[in-house]
């Protein structure tokens, strides 16, 4: 297994070119082309501001009743969530779509889920400038804690890789994981503090909800983003540390299952 992992490093040029192919192919034939990477999060931001900021209106004291602040908070969570959910959904299909490669070319299959996580990471990166652009506009200021952001991204990256290894290899044998996953991700989205802060009074009053949210690794990743960008305060090191260990464990479990099922891919995809 570790020998195979080392091999991935050998294939980094391939990963790199496949990611760039993925990015090029995605907007091929569109008028705005690469600009879509900026427009997509921008449009999303506008929609969220209107719906959650102005129509529903924030209730938590953290937002001082300002729809702009709430929109910014939302965006801090939605952006990385889109990265996670689209890489998971993409990777559920990726082995089947590229079945030809697995069947006909000597090709380490784990590259495919890695490529979907990486190409979505790039999209996420393109969304960050939009986020940063709105921080001062919506009345917040940058703090030195922003420098912790890469750490949170790394934790999420490893977590996503582990999750996609698991999803992509199991979907080969159970095709309906793809459909279950879509529903599950919606549930997961609302089970993580993205549209609401964890300090929300309803949550703090219920012990069950508190424990439940704390058991969700995504809670801590999302909080990491919110702390760095929105609140401008230090990361919760202990919680993020545990999440990091958990991400590593998931990575190794996911990869070893992938590795175990590897030989069945050429016949089953």
């Amino acid at each position, binding site marked *: 297994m570790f020998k195979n992992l080392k091999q991935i490093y050998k294939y980094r040029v391939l990963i790199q070119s496949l990611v760039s192919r993925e990015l090029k192919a995605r907007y091929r034939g569109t008028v705005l082309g690469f600009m879509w990477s900026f427009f997509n999060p921008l449009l999303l931001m506008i929609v969220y501001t209107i719906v959650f900021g102005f129509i529903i209106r924030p209730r938590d004291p953290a937002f001082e009743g300002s729809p702009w602040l709430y929109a910014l908070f939302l965006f801090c969570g939605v952006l990385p969530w889109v990265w996670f959910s689209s890489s998971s959904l993409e990777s559920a299909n990726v082995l089947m779509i590229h079945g030809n490669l697995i069947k006909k070319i000597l090709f380490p299959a784990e590259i495919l889920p890695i490529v979907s996580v990486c190409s979505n990471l790039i999209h996420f990166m393109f969304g960050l400038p939009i986020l940063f652009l709105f921080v001062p506009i919506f009345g917040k200021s940058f703090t030195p804690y922003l420098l912790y952001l890469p750490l949170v991204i790394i934790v999420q990256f490893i977590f996503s890789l582990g999750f996609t290894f698991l999803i992509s290899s199991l979907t080969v044998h*159970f095709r309906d994981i793809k459909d279950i996953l879509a529903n599950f991700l919606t549930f997961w989205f609302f089970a993580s503090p993205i549209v609401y802060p964890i300090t929300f009074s309803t949550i703090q009053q219920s012990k069950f909800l508190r424990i439940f949210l704390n058991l969700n690794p995504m809670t801590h990743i999302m909080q990491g983003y919110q702390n760095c960008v929105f609140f401008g305060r230090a990361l919760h090191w202990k919680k993020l540390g545990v999440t990091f260990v958990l991400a590593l464990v998931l990575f190794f479990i996911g990869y070893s299952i992938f590795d175990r099922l590897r030989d069945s891919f050429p016949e089953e995809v």
Partner: protein
Amino acid sequence: MTAIDVEDVSRIYQKYSARHRFQTFKSSIVKGDIFKALKPDELVTALDKVSFKVKEGTTFGIIGENGSGKSTLLKIVAGIAKPTSGRVTVRGKVSALIELGAGFHPEITGRENVYINGIMLGLSKKEIHRKFDEIVKFAELEKFIDAPVKTYSSGMYMRLGFSIAINVNPDILLIDEVLAVGDASFVPKCLDRIDDFRRRKKTILFVSHDLSTVEKVCDQVIWLKEGKIQAVGEPKRVIDAYLQDIVEKQEEDFEERQRTIDREKEQEWQEERRENRWGKREIEIAKVRLRGLDGKEKHVFSPDEGMIIEMDVKSSSRIQDFVFGIGIFNSQGICCYGTNTKLEDFEPISIEGEAKAVCRIEALNLINGTYYLDVAIHKRDGYPYDYHRKLYSFLISSLHQDEGIVRPKHSWDFSPQIKMKTSKKRMSDP
């Protein structure tokens, strides 16, 4: 030096039954047999203890029927599939032409695909950059290289795929039937490239159904049958053994088909028989048999072979006016040959009781195909006693791809000013 060493390799495919195929994650959790679902319940042996060695610098052919394990073997040597048991040792850089352009992405340009495909096949970016022009030139795609691959014709697609794979410059080249799709000008170009490889003493493993190319190109051939090695060695000998086996199988198929017709379609067959048989049967043709010249009953012949048509006839009374006739028709209904005893100046004297009439054809000299046989007994003025129209059939099977109706015995001769070479030695075989 051994380039490829295959030791005792078996490959067992796991076949999941229909029940498992539609097994879903939900249902497997509900039933609690998620781990059982991941286990196959039926095994198919694609390769059974196959061992052979390929010496460096030789071209090695693999022949066999569809489903005999050729492609599986190639994939195992390429490392794409893993053997269930046994060991494969490969010395040198391998490039496998199993499916051309397998990794192409339709939305991006040919240029970008060359780079990505090249990297997949093990080239570095620098190497591709260096060879890029050569790749494009060989594929004859200079004009289209910056167009998205989805706009390519299937020929262009294949050419680009082949061109990249061949320019990987491997020590060992694995080729699986990929030349079958090329057009008339590209295939010779590919074969030239393969020849070039052979001259440079590279090792080639070649899977093909085109036996004449195999015989021309390969130094050694193995014949796989149902996952086992049936024969290894000198190409001509192995190919001949393989062809012999095919003919035997065709014979079996033919008989099997006759039998099923006899059994299942008795009614229909009888009706057809009635339609295709006429005459009052004063003299009856009771049975017709086809035999080889050695007297063995058979239905598949080679063009050079002879045939014996044997008719069992029965005459209820003594009859003095009769003619035996035969006619051979091809599948389009064209009469290839017809004759009767009257045309050949036999004067009938008498026939009574059970008798046998035999027509011996020394050499059929027909091209490939299915043929139908008419047999008849009639009066000299044409009044039929018993006429069987196309009730019997036989098959001509050979490697030749000639056209027309007959295949006269022939040979070519050239004066010394004309230089030609041929690989198809069997063309001039008697």
